[in-house]
């Protein structure tokens, strides 16, 4: 029997709440976090709506208990807040004899500071404290330093599937016996850099996003951070942590189709879900709910929908996207949505796919449009797909 991977802790900050409990309350009450841009000085602020964490950087630093010293990016502080919640939940400061890794994911890194100070970087010495915070590793190393997690650390960037791949690597390192416990997830703050980048690609909706709707018109970007604590069963016996659920399967595949578009039949999505299912040992019919990548772009939702139809045939599980609540939190989406999926197992609910009115012509199934309670939820699948066709699927099951 391969080593079971147990989830024993989690932490999250997003536009719908600063803790797991707050996010759960927003989800169960059906309150999305999408709104006007408050923390970024951009010409797009009157055009776009986003899922922004409703705190300024100084407020976030204060929340994290960090002295307002220089060099912290918004991304790093979001990462510290969410990772600390997960760290304390699973009491990673105890049992230090267990080997504990930190695998974090980001793509924008410290770009929020870098884009503000770029001219200073080029012309003077005033912002030198922020030069180091530009790259992706900086947030990971600052988290590692604060939490004293140094047995294994690395950073992953596969665009919008980054955090899912961090969780996947964590599981593999535990299963291979290289680590006992892993804190895995991702952080991503909104930046002018990627707001403009996505805008240039013409895939942002100016209205609340409408995943799986016939009239969907693109993404609402979001920000946030989330981390899971994964433990081997042996480690969990030592820590005595109560398992929240089991990470039962994971799959990574590549579309190999186009840098920013998904293939019409969703071959990457199909292969990622199929690999995860095979590894989990479950049958397609065992999956009760799919938390879809569901960005609300014309392209993703058809492609993902087709892949789901190919894999699940005429027994399609309940499907919804939760990006109408959080916005598309890009590199953090994989871990934020993993936690939202895990909450379905814990509370026996299924999240509604908000803003839906009309079925996509090309698809034969409807997303779940209201909060479902009273149905058994034993196994959930969380999908995360990225630019470049980096597709990853995770399966969590009830203990």
């Amino acid at each position: 029997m391969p080593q079971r991977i147990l989830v024993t802790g989690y932490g999250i900050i997003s536009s719908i709440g600063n803790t797991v409990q707050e996010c759960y309350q927003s989800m169960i009450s059906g309150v999305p976090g999408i709104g006007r841009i408050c923390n970024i000085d951009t010409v797009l602020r009157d055009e776009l709506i986003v899922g922004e964490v409703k705190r300024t950087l100084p407020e976030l630093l204060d929340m994290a208990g960090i002295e307002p010293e220089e060099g912290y990016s918004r991304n790093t502080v979001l990462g510290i807040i969410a990772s600390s919640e997960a760290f304390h939940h699973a009491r990673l400061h105890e049992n230090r004899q267990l080997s504990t890794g930190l695998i974090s994911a980001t793509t924008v890194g410290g770009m929020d500071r870098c884009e503000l100070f770029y001219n200073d970087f080029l012309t003077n010495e005033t912002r030198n404290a922020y030069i180091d915070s530009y790259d992706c590793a900086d947030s990971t190393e600052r988290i590692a330093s604060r939490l004293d997690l140094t047995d294994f650390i690395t950073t992953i960037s596969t665009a919008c599937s980054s955090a899912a791949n961090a969780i996947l690597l964590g599981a593999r390192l535990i299963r291979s016996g290289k680590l006992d416990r892993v804190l895995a997830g991702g952080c991503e703050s909104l930046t002018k850099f990627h707001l403009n980048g996505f805008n240039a690609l013409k895939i942002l909706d100016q209205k609340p996003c409408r995943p799986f709707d016939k009239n969907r018109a693109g993404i609402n970007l979001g920000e946030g951070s989330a981390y899971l604590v994964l433990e081997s069963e042996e480690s969990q016996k030592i820590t005595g942590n109560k398992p929240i659920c089991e990470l039962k399967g994971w799959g990574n595949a590549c579309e190999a189709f186009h840098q920013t578009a998904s293939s019409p039949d969703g071959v990457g999505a199909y292969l990622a879900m199929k690999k995860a299912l095979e590894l989990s040992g479950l049958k397609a019919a065992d999956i009760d709910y799919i938390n879809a990548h569901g960005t609300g772009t014309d392209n993703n939702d058809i492609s993902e929908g087709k892949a789901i139809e190919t894999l699940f045939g005429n027994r399609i599980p309940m499907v919804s996207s939760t990006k109408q609540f959080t916005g598309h939190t890009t590199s953090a989406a994989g871990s934020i949505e993993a936690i939202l999926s895990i909450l379905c197992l814990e509370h026996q609910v299924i999240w509604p796919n908000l803003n839906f009115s009309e079925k996509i012509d090309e698809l034969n199934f409807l997303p779940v449009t209201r909060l479902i309670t009273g149905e058994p939820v034993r196994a959930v699948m969380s999908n995360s797909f990225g630019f470049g066709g980096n597709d990853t699927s995770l399966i969590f099951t009830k203990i």
Partner: protein
Amino acid sequence: MNFIDGIGMISPQQTLVPGRFPDDVVEYTADFLKCIEPVYKTYIDPIPLRRMSRLIRMGISSARMCLADAGIAMPDAIITGTGLGSVEDTEKILSDISKEEKFLNPTPFIQSTYNTISSQIAIHLKCHNYNTTYVHRTFSFESGLIDGMLQLSEGSSTRVLVGGIDEMTLNHLNITRRIGLWKRQPVNNLQLLNSKTPGALAGEGAAFFLISADRSDHSYARLRNVSTLIDIRGSYRRDQAIRNFLLQNQLQPEDIDLLIVGISGDAVFDPVYHQFASDFFPNTPLAWYKHLCGEYHTSTGFALYTAAQILKSQECPEILLLNHKVPSRLKNILIYNQFRNINHSFLLVSSTD
């Protein structure tokens, strides 16, 4: 068992010809060492090539060189590491939006995403297999190797393509010079150790390796182990880590025939390597490589290329040697690299027999 079965290396040296370490060394006096680039249309179709920035071109070309060298068409996994991704594309966007936020050209944005190289390779090969990208400073390439070896040990793959790619630009050099990473003046790469000043000589490179579970008649070497260690608090955990690393691989310090270290001409951090060598490997021949490729986050790609060539040819070029000790046997090579005495990595490479 992990055998290096193919190599593609683009570097500031004449490394484009596979199969052997270059006979002649290219000498530079420069702010940073720039890669000698191949004729890209040999590797990339002209239409997509036009829109590709330099790092993406180097990445795809070195990956294709590597696959051609190994004689395989389709790897079971594509894994890349890059400390900084496409700096050129990122700078284009930063420079645009810092002036005025207007409709951008989306191409630099797409290419600035770190996973562009691994996914572009997949698109070129139509490879749907495992695909990921590591972006952790000097652990980027090492993390890729660790993942690749894990793929092989899981049995899900038998041949994985792992690469490390980074570029330097003048803007980025000037910015990061402010925090002491680089020399203030142009230096001669072959006189690097005479400079005795703080900061390294910057460089760049693209290195891909095909790592196979099975040995073939053209295998270069065996990649036995890779380990990374972060020492944020200066707690000297590295010393314990190297002892454990040798122990894990059932080796004594005397079993290491050649120690390749990341000495970069930086007067502040080079003593870290000298201390390491004298503490643990006082009698071992010592070699370096950053005078040939410069310092960059994935420079251990060049070091692994060097070690693989040495083990295959059973010759150690004199230009690499530092301490006048000539290796009497070439079976086990240890590579040790560090960044700011915080990020330490060890790579153990052995001959195939």
